[in-house]
């Protein structure tokens, strides 16, 4: 590193400064109302549900039901479709085939103060099995019985498409909200046969959602065109809701919640604000401490730590096009703080070592050079062990399809995916932060300090904490 020239400091410093500014603000091009995000800034960071509020729920089939892989796959499809119908698009949904679990996580719907997460989850887990049944025999609790229980005419899978409509079911009645069903070929045939039979008998067809009867119209004609209409005191919303439910399909079984947690956005927002304030205060304290105790190397350390923080945020926000953004949770912020602590430590180890070398009578250039060289093994070993811990965390608490989960599946094979995926974020920011520390805390610090030490006014050993005799 003896070849480091004077301008290197300015080049590294300006690069870190530009990088930090671009990470914070990002780059968004506005053209009228259209905005295109070219570089994602801090504003584009996606926060976990512990910060912005949301729902984390794990569904399982009811006790005694052993779900097949196909059933789980189709259940996931249905749940995803239902979330889209509820207007939830920023969801995560995984299935864990070992333990028959479906894990769903979605944020509190933005701008909706009275969003009811409990009813949303209840709706997601409903079987939503649509049936057309012969007759309307019901027992005392209102559930189908007798011939109505036995003779199922149509099921949800016979429906090609359902939509809400506003029309009169027949000429005599007034217009009302209904759900219109377009049946597929098989359904059309079954429906035609059944309506023919029941028309002759003067019977009726009851329409059910799970165990609740919606309506039971008398068959007034043989229907062969594959169109069916469900009436039942709907309004605009409820008719659309039912049509959505039918379209997204039925679950193979009712899903019960193995774990279920909700956090309101107001609670998380306070936590985020507190963490940001704490972060700024802590950073200021560290900067003052480093500059007072270590002088020039301390000041350089503050620059490289700034770069390290910016780069960690860049990895989280998806600044680098080749990496997807990841979700930042409160433990994730703690991971950043810890990694920054490690970055400070790397700089302290180096500065102490330089001071020691000066004290032992080395020249300034010699002391700076061997200070970095000798400090490196300690920093490397310390960082590698921390990365080991971080990777194990990511493997243990990551999503089933993430790389580290697969890598460590031989350790955690007997466990299902647990609900505390938030710890994953801690592991991620810690690992990224510590690896970045090797770049900023070791390489950048070294380049900047070595180049600064070439300037005449920077050659006083006192600036490096050296004694008078140096």
């Amino acid at each position, binding site marked *: 590193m003896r070849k480091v020239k004077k301008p290197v400091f300015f080049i590294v410093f300006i690069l870190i400064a530009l990088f930090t500014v671009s990470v914070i603000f990002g780059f968004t091009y506005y053209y009228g109302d259209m905005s295109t995000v070219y570089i994602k800034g801090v504003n584009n960071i996606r926060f976990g549900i*512990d910060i912005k509020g949301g729902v984390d729920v794990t569904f399982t089939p009811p006790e005694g039901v052993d779900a097949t892989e196909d059933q789980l796959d189709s259940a996931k499809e249905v749940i995803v479709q239902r979330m889209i119908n509820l207007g939830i698009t920023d969801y995560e949904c995984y299935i864990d085939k070992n333990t028959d679990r479906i894990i769903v996580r979605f944020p509190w719907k933005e701008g909706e103060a009275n969003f009811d997460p*409990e009813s949303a989850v*209840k709706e997601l*887990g409903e079987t939503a099995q649509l049936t057309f049944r012969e007759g309307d025999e019901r027992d005392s609790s209102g559930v189908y019985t007798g011939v109505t229980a036995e003779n199922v005419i149509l099921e949800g899978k016979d429906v090609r498409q359902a939509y809400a409509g506003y029309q009169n079911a027949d000429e005599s009645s007034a217009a009302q909200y209904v759900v219109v069903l377009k049946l597929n070929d098989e359904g059309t045939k079954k429906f035609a046969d059944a309506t023919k039979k029941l028309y002759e008998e003067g019977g009726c067809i009851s329409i059910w959602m799970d165990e609740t009867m919606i309506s039971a119209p008398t068959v007034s004609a043989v229907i062969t065109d594959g169109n069916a209409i469900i009436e039942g005191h709907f309004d605009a919303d409820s008719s659309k809701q039912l049509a959505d439910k039918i379209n997204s399909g039925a679950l193979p079984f009712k899903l019960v*919640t*193995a*774990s*279920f*947690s*909700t*956090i*309101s956005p*107001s*609670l998380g927002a*306070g*936590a985020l604000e*507190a*963490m940001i304030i*704490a972060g700024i*205060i*802590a950073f200021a*304290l*560290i900067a003052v*401490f*480093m500059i007072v105790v270590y002088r020039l190397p301390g000041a350089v350390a503050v620059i490289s730590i700034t770069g390290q923080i910016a780069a960690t945020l860049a990895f989280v926000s998806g600044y680098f096009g080749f990496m997807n953004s990841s979700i930042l949770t*409160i*433990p994730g912020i703690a991971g950043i*703080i810890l990694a*920054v*602590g*490690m970055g400070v*430590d790397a700089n*302290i*180890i180096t500065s*102490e070592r330089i001071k*020691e070398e000066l004290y032992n009578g080395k020249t300034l250039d010699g002391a700076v050079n061997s200070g970095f060289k000798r400090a490196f*093994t*300690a920093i490397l070993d*310390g*960082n*590698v*062990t*921390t990365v*080991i*811990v971080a990777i*194990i*965390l990511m493997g*243990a608490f990551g999503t089933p399809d993430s790389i580290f989960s697969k890598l*460590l599946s031989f*350790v*955690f094979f007997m466990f299902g995916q*647990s*609900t*505390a995926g*938030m*710890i994953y974020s*801690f592991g991620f920011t*810690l690992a990224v932060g510590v690896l970045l520390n090797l770049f900023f805390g070791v390489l950048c610090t070294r380049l900047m300090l070595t180049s600064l030490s070439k300037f005449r006014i920077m050659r006083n050993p006192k600036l490096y*904490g050296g*004694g008078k005799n140096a």
Partner: protein
Amino acid sequence: MRKFNIDFVGKRKVFFTISIVLIAVSILSTFIFGVKLDIQFKGGTLITYLYDGDIDTAEFEKTAEDALGGLAVNVTTGKDFSTGKNNIQISLVSNTGLTSDKQYELSNVIQEKYAANSIELVESTDISPSSGKEFFQKCLVAVAFASILLVIYIAVRFKNIGGWLAGACAVIALIHDCIIVYGTFVVAHMSINANFMAVILTILGYSINDTIITYDRIRENQQLYKKTMTRAEIVNLSINQTLVRSINTSITTIATMLVVTIVAVIYGIDSILSFSLPMVVGMISGVYSSVCIASPLWVVLEGIREKKKPAAKK
């Protein structure tokens, strides 16, 4: 330049005694105070609502129990600092967990009955005992697996200072820190939750880093002074040489966590507080165990090994 010359190896009995006493206190307090396992681990339900005005807790409890078909619940009230509103918390331990249907019903009943108090759901957690237990076991396996990998890594990287034995001492220091963190949770009546695991794992990384910085210096000094100094002298020299660094690093990291703790207290955010406070304790314990326990213990164990196998000595 400040130079320390503390005889850490010579004073080892003092340090070992302090540590054994602290560990004993941690374990004893488990039996005296009992361990509060969070519902994340033992399963159960915790629902928090915000409300305006006054609510009679006993009556609220009765309403909730009726809505849940007679399940016994526990109701506590408090104040939410970030919003300044009152909050009321329902907790229950159940063998099956509360299904979302039941929770939905419960919220409906409460919102209807206490309409005047404009009840609002803030937070709810419901975990079945089996998944809670599984999460706990998974955490333990993660810690155990991390420890094994760390011992292997140290054994490889520090071959010339005894490898496996040095690794074992580092892990003993880690277990020491874990027990102290655990003791903090027990004595402070905080429940063992996901934060506990996050702290334990952070301290694992932090404390091993401290230990390795010292080992690194021992590795270096061993090569320089192998012929002229005893092992105890080399270890003492190394610890003293790295002491300023250990203290300064601890000051920065502990100050950071203290700032987080203070801000969390001001904002009244328990979830951060139960993370940062044990972290401070763990970090102090971490630097203490690295400086005063790991390396002196290594000297002792290495001595025992040599006595047993005098022929192996070069």
